[in-house]
């Protein structure tokens, strides 16, 4: 109960002292102790009893030792007899019992909560637990209070710019207030305000500054609220200069003030505040020379300022300056002694980065005595000063001088630049997805901001160190790469050392030849490199390489080293990310490739080529696939498809469909029936999958193309005569669109020289463009894509890409029907006598192209037919047996080759033997080769063409 009350109390109270007193009170109540108290831990760890509000209670002598004991312990300490307990070496004569527990929050000790009783064995373990609970609540509250104080302190630090403003305001020899819009709350007021107004406190609002009922116009009329100068500036943006106001001062006397007021606007022009300056003009008669007054003023508080202050009279005389001014500008004593601002100016211009601009600015300000200005001055040595100047306005409002404030903001500027540099470097690296970009980003960021030479070295998988792109800026600022030798990873080259040790090192001299290569050293010397920094590139616990920086000017300082370390850390992370990204992408591509044919079949008479381009920059695999399957009857099945979606799910569905398509193909299932069955398969996979597919079979005659399309883009035919045609037939719904889809088969004709192109929609789709435009573009490109099928694919891809990065995966499969005149005749035929007619037909066609005479054609066809019949017999009984026929010309000699894959059997019976004999007699030569895998019969016959007719 008591603890709960304490809990409620600590939520209300934030003052540590009150909290501690409250805790002690609660403990006293709960424990029935004669004395309870809190001992605080001091800065040096000493314990001191909080002064008790109850003066009558005196600290029991043993409490100190008890508290010290508790502070060293994790558990509350219960002492039943304070006189005898040997844990308390300093135990006093005073007896009784005690309990104490440390007030600790996450290892930070605030003090000890202790209770005492004059009787022995007064406290039980239960009491100890209670006390500890109170201490825990207290510790939490104290921690909260401490963190709040810490935040306040940080908040104060952020106010430093306001402090600076106040310093300036204080330097102005007039009352100055800044009042925020719209309420007119005064946030800045200098010490002259209360002095001029003769009040004890600075007023809080614009109304309080000059109270309407104490403020009068020169004619005696009383001001109303809206007429007050600050209020007018805030409300209406009015600029008021030297308005004379009669006021009743704090001490009841009357005075005339000259008030100026102007609004402060933000970038959008909204009034955010108003500034008013005022001074007592009643006393003008009695005033000393104003300059003298201000000089005294400045001298009084100027010496301690972190700002250099200079006061110059309108005639260019130095009226006053402080020590800091001399230090900042390093102006010789004798120049100062002349008292001439001109002399002082000319003594400093040498140091400036832009002396002309500086002098011009000073001249301008002297010509415009009413202007205030704030700007930055750059020095040749890299320092930057902040300059603020404002006129000193004398009696009657006329300027009688100018005050200058200078502040060295080099550190702040550099810190800002470093922050910006790191931010820009990070931004550049974040976008980088490949090594060259990372290297380029780092080099670009580092040279010349951080170094004059920059190189990135990467540890390869085999431990070798690769020196990637480097950049050097010579003194003229021209970037170029330097020549250098490879680095021995086991050698003493600083990069190798950094990679091995993971330590950053800076060098104030070039390492000697031998440690670094001779050419590298020579190049570095030519650049003027005098030292540098080598920082290991460490990310996720491993060293991926090293960043090497070279400096031509000053030896790198602590800040450069720190910055180099930061850059290296960011670069390492970026490099590691890139490596990771590439690894993952490789995995995805490997997976994708494993699902695509390793190599395409090359059926006789056809040339096939395929391409697969992963789309976009993602690492997820797509669901596009293609396949080409030689069929037992000598035909070729061509399949292309696209599973909607990406990732492993799409890839797995794709894998299924590809395998099933193969099975149907080898089974001789007609395209339309295969498509219908595959749609049902997609349905059973049953997760709302969608896929498109085109399934085509090119018959053994290499002419008839039968196809069915499940919502797939139409295949394109580039005919031998160059005209292009989309095969729109046989198209129905995609897989997964409905549970039962009827697919139609359409039949088309290809001729020798025609190229058939199957593709997925990624090839033709472009964002924000109708599909028709893509089809039209493809047709135009394919028409000019050439005869050679590999080149055809390359041309189509590159011409269509045309700078557009494909968002989707692209798969394409191109099939060209080779024209007979292109050379050889290739046929792969089923081991079925019915195939003989097809063979004869193709061969006759081919021989005509070869200008064989009719007689020659018959004799060759006769012989080849015999050889083929023999091959069919060999393959007899073999499942899905087939044989190959090939014919080509060697000069004027026709060479035909019949290959089977069955066991060689001796000719059965007289007739078969007779057939082979006839075959032999038709040819110039006949060779029979028997291999392990089958038999090859090679026939030769010289063609005489029409001469033999």
């Amino acid at each position, binding site marked *: 109960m008591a603890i709960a009350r304490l809990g409620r109390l600590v939520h209300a109270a934030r003052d540590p002292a009150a909290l501690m007193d409250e805790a002690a009170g609660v403990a006293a109540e709960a424990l029935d102790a004669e004395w309870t108290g809190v001992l605080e831990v001091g800065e040096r760890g000493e314990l001191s009893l909080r002064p008790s509000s109850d003066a009558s209670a005196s600290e029991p002598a043993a409490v100190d030792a008890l508290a010290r004991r508790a502070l060293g312990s994790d558990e509350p300490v219960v002492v039943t007899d304070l006189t005898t307990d040997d844990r308390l070496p300093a135990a006093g004569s005073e007896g009784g019992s005690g309990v104490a527990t440390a007030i600790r929050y996450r290892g930070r000790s605030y003090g000890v909560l202790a209770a005492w009783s004059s009787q022995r064995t007064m406290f039980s373990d239960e009491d100890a637990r209670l006390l500890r609970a109170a201490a825990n609540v207290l510790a939490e509250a104290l921690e909260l209070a401490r963190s709040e104080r810490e935040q306040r302190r940080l908040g104060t630090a952020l106010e430093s710019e306001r402090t600076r403003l106040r310093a300036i305001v204080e330097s102005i020899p007039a009352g100055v207030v800044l009042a925020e819009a719209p309420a007119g709350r005064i946030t800045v007021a200098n010490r002259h305000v209360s002095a001029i107004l003769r009040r004890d406190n600075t007023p809080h609002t614009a109304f309080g500054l000059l109270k309407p009922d104490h403020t009068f116009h020169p004619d005696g009329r009383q001001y109303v609220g809206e007429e007050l100068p600050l209020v007018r500036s805030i409300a209406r943006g009015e600029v008021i200069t030297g308005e004379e106001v009669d006021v009743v001062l704090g001490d009841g006397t009357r005075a005339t003030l000259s008030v100026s007021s102007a609004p402060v606007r933000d970038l959008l022009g909204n009034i955010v505040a108003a500034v008013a300056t005022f001074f007592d003009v009643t006393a003008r008669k009695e005033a000393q020379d104003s300059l003298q007054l201000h000089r005294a003023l400045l001298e009084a508080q100027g010496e301690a300022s972190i700002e250099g202050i200079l006061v110059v009279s309108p005639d260019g005389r130095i009226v006053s300056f402080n020590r800091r001014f001399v230090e900042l500008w390093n102006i010789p004593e004798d120049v100062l002694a002349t008292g001439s601002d001109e002399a002082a100016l000319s003594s400093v211009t040498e140091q400036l980065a832009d002396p002309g601009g500086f002098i011009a600015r000073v001249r301008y300000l002297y010509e415009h005595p009413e202007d205030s200005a704030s700007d930055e001055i750059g020095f040749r040595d890299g320092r930057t000063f902040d300059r603020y100047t404002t006129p000193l306005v004398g009696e009657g409002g006329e300027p009688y001088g100018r005050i200058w404030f200078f502040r060295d903001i080099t550190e702040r500027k550099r810190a800002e630049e470093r922050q910006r540099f790191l931010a820009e470097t990070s931004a550049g690296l974040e976008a980088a997805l490949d090594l060259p970009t990372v290297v380029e980003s780092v080099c670009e960021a580092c040279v010349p901001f951080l170094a004059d030479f920059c190189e990135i070295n990467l540890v390869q998988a085999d431990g070798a160190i690769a020196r990637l792109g480097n950049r050097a800026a010579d003194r003229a600022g021209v970037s170029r790469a330097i020549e250098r030798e490879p680095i021995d990873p086991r050698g003493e080259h600083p990069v190798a050392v950094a990679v091995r040790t993971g330590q950053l090192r800076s060098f104030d001299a070039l390492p000697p030849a031998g440690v670094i290569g001779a050419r590298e050293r020579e190049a570095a010397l030519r650049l003027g490199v005098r030292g540098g920094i080598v920082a290991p590139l460490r990310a996720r616990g491993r060293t991926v390489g090293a960043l090497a920086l070279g400096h031509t000017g000053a030896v790198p300082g602590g800040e450069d080293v720190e910055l180099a370390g930061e850059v290296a850390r960011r670069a390492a992370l970026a490099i590691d990310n890139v490596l990771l990204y590439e690894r993952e992408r490789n995995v995805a591509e490997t997976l994708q490739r494993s699902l695509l044919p390793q190599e395409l079949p090359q059926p006789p008479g056809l040339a096939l080529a395929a391409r697969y381009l992963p789309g976009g920059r993602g690492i997820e695999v797509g669901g596009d696939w293609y396949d080409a399957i030689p069929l037992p009857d000598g035909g070729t099945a061509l399949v292309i498809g696209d599973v909607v979606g990406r990732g492993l799910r799409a890839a797995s569905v794709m894998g299924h469909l590809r395998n099933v398509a193969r099975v149907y193909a080898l089974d001789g299932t007609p395209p339309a029936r295969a498509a219908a069955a595959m749609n049902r398969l997609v349905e059973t996979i049953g997760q709302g999958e969608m896929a498109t597919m085109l399934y085509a079979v090119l018959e053994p005659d290499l002419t008839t193309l039968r196809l069915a399309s499940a919502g797939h883009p139409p295949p394109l035919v580039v005919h031998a005569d160059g005209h292009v045609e989309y095969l729109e037939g046989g198209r129905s719904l995609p897989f997964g669109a409905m549970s039962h889809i009827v697919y139609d088969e359409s039949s088309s004709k290809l001729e020798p020289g025609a190229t058939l192109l199957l593709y997925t929609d990624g090839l033709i789709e472009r964002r924000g463009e109708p599909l028709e435009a893509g089809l039209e573009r493809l047709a135009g490109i394919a028409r000019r894509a050439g005869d050679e099928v590999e080149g055809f694919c390359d041309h189509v891809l590159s011409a269509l890409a045309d700078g557009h990065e494909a968002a989707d995966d692209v798969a394409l499969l191109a099939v060209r029907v080779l024209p007979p005149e292109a050379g050889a005749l290739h046929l792969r035929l089923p081991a079925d006598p019915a195939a003989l007619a097809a063979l004869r037909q193709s061969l006759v066609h081919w021989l005509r192209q070869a200008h064989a005479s009719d007689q020659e054609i018959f004799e060759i066809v006769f012989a080849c*037919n015999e050889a083929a019949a023999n091959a069919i017999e060999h393959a007899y009984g073999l499942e899905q047996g087939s044989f190959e026929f090939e014919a080509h010309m060697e000069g004027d000699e026709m060479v035909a080759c019949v290959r089977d894959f069955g066991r060689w059997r001796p000719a059965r019976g007289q007739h078969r033997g*007779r057939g082979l004999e006839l075959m032999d007699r038709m040819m110039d030569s006949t060779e029979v080769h028997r291999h392990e895998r089958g038999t090859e019969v090679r026939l030769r016959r010289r063609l005489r063409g029409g001469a033999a007719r």
Partner: protein
Amino acid sequence: MTGQLATLSMAESDGVPVASVTGEIDLTNVAELGERIARGVPNGALGLVVDLERTSFLDSAGLRLLFQLARRLERRGQQLRIAVPDNAVIRKALDVAEVPRVAVVNGSVHDAVADLLAQSAGTSGPAPPSGQTPKPAR
């Protein structure tokens, strides 16, 4: 497919059955052709003329059919005559296979029928080969 490769038409010329094969003869259709041709020869006929004038191709099985027909007819005392123009491309196959050893090869159906009728009027024995000698193997 058999029907597509070759068509067979059976006719009669002066009482002599004439079997005309248009198209190609190979393994796949030879058995059926042989059967139909054999059925088209009445027992009382003098013989048979196989007309290969419009036969674009025949393989060794086709040649074998000619030997089989010749043998079959011979057993029945009938003669086989083959009509094929001298310049026909398939003529080479007949010569190489030495078909003229078992059947007279005439240049046309007309010649074949006339020759057959003239022969049977003269002698009743099998006709000697019509002067064609096999070409030597190339």
